[in-house]
């Protein structure tokens, strides 16, 4: 029981982070029907920048984090305004290739600027934890859950109630009608990229916390958001959240139990488990649990 609660808690913390990564994909996809393959590298850039501010420039973590958000949002905004904007109306494939280009640029830039050694992400908690009986709740995971939930609530409130959130949902529902209603799509896309940048940075910083470290391959962990968004349905933001938590919990439980209980599956089966779930979901519900439209073919 103790083990289970411990694993479940770690799973929820990891799931909160995956939910943020998945939201980043979904928000851009909903606004512009483009899958941003650079989401993982934006996440890595945000985490590295925040770490550098906190450890290199000695800023307090709670100052470094918002600046990190700003930085990652700026990457998204600059890429939208400087590159993607000129590719609107081209085949989706062109835009997808451009996002892969951004991924490559960031992947090369990060080790060049900050080195390729693992480093601490600059959070103030390290491996400290709050204990309840036998169970340890690492502070970084507690804060990952709290921050992710605050970010998700803010995101949904913005999406539901603010004028620009409504404009984004309108553009997602019918672009031509949105244009006729005077909604500037360029601004809607820009906003989507900014939001994607913000959630990427939050996700990156907490993903690099205990028990992990920050190294340039952290961007690859965004690939784990794919099972999450496919589980939830790529055009559903709430699906992304449910999928994110589900994948996080599945992964931690498998990592905790499988090595003893099903040792014949090998050591790293927890890495494969989310993809197996993804394949199973694709077979049964090709549009995901909450998706509405046929998924994009690439």
């Amino acid at each position, binding site marked *: 029981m103790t083990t289970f609660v411990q694993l479940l808690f770690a799973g929820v913390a990891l799931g909160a982070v995956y939910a943020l990564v998945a939201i980043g994909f979904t928000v851009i996809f909903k606004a512009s029907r483009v899958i941003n393959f650079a989401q993982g590298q934006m996440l890595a850039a945000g985490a590295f920048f925040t770490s550098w501010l906190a450890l290199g420039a000695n800023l307090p973590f709670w100052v470094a984090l918002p600046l990190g958000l700003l930085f990652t949002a700026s990457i998204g905004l600059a890429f939208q305004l400087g590159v993607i904007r000129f590719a609107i109306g081209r085949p989706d494939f062109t835009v997808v290739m451009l996002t892969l280009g951004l991924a490559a640029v960031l992947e090369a830039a990060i080790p060049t600027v900050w080195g390729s050694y693992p480093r601490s992400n600059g959070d103030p908690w390290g491996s400290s934890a709050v204990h309840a009986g036998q169970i340890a709740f690492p502070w970084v995971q507690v804060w990952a859950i709290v921050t992710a939930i605050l970010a998700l609530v803010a995101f949904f409130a*913005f999406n539901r109630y*603010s*004028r*620009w*959130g*409504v*404009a984004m*949902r*309108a553009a997602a*529902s*019918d672009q*031509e*009608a*949105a*244009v*006729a*209603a*005077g*909604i*500037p*799509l360029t601004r809607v896309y820009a*906003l989507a990229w900014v939001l994607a940048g913000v959630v990427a940075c939050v996700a990156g910083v907490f993903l690099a916390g205990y028990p992990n470290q920050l190294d340039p391959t952290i961007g690859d962990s965004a690939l784990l958001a794919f099972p999450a968004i496919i589980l939830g349905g790529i055009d559903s933001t709430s699906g992304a959240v449910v999928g994110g938590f589900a994948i996080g919990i599945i992964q931690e439980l498998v990592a905790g139990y499988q090595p003893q209980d099903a040792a014949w599956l090998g050591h790293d089966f927890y890495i494969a488990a989310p993809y197996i779930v993804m394949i199973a979901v694709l077979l049964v519900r090709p549009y995901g649990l909450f998706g509405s439209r046929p998924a994009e073919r690439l």
Partner: protein
Amino acid sequence: MTLGAAVTAGVAGAPGVCATALEASGLTLRFGAVQALDGVSFEVAEGELFAIIGPNGAGKSSLFNLLSRTYRPSSGRISYFGRDLLALRAHQLAGAGIVRTFQNVGLFKPLTVLDNVMIGRTTHTRRGVLSSGLRLPVSRREESDTRERAMGALRAVGAAELAGRPAGLLPYGLQKRVEIARALVMEPRMLLLDEPVAGMSQAERNDLADLVRSLNAGMGLTVVLVEHDMGVVMRLAQRVLVLDFGRVVAVGAPQDVQHDEGVIRAYLGEPMREERR
């Protein structure tokens, strides 16, 4: 209609002086070897209710898409109150006072009716992402103003009690009314209606025709509509432009156009052929 006066007043610029709302000259549209429109010219006076009709494939939709800036003409000019319409992008039309509706209802189906109408105020609201996201007092005031206007427009089209419902769940005729309510909060000078009664029952058609007439007569809105339904056009329009094979066959009052030889030929001697269902 004081079209003669309108033409002489076409000296550009100052609104109120210039009474030509829309002036198209020599509009040509080619898709590869297909000539969709060939030298189409016409004028619409301010406050006029102007209809564009023609048999299937005559070029009505192409012409509408030029006016709504969905397509760019191969050649020709369009001016709107003396301004070059072709210099505006599609999303700038709303700000210039040109508001369109869609043939299959351009509503955002998952959004509520009220949100759908409030979106029409986009070009009239100034508060940006940050201040509206943070719900600063200025933007809250602006938002309650937007909400009031939206409710007013919904009342005007008789759909106020539906404000909280998802737009996609309403019957078609009501969706069209909500779309018109959204058009109204945009404070248009000119309405472009793309087959507004297509797919409607006879009762819905009559209601919508009354609504369009009241917008034109009551509010003085210039209305340009493309329509299949001859009955509606003949009752509603002050002047009619008949297209056939991308060319203008006739322009004039409905009763004159109805007896025009070219028009009868275009419709193969059955002027009511287009009446469906």
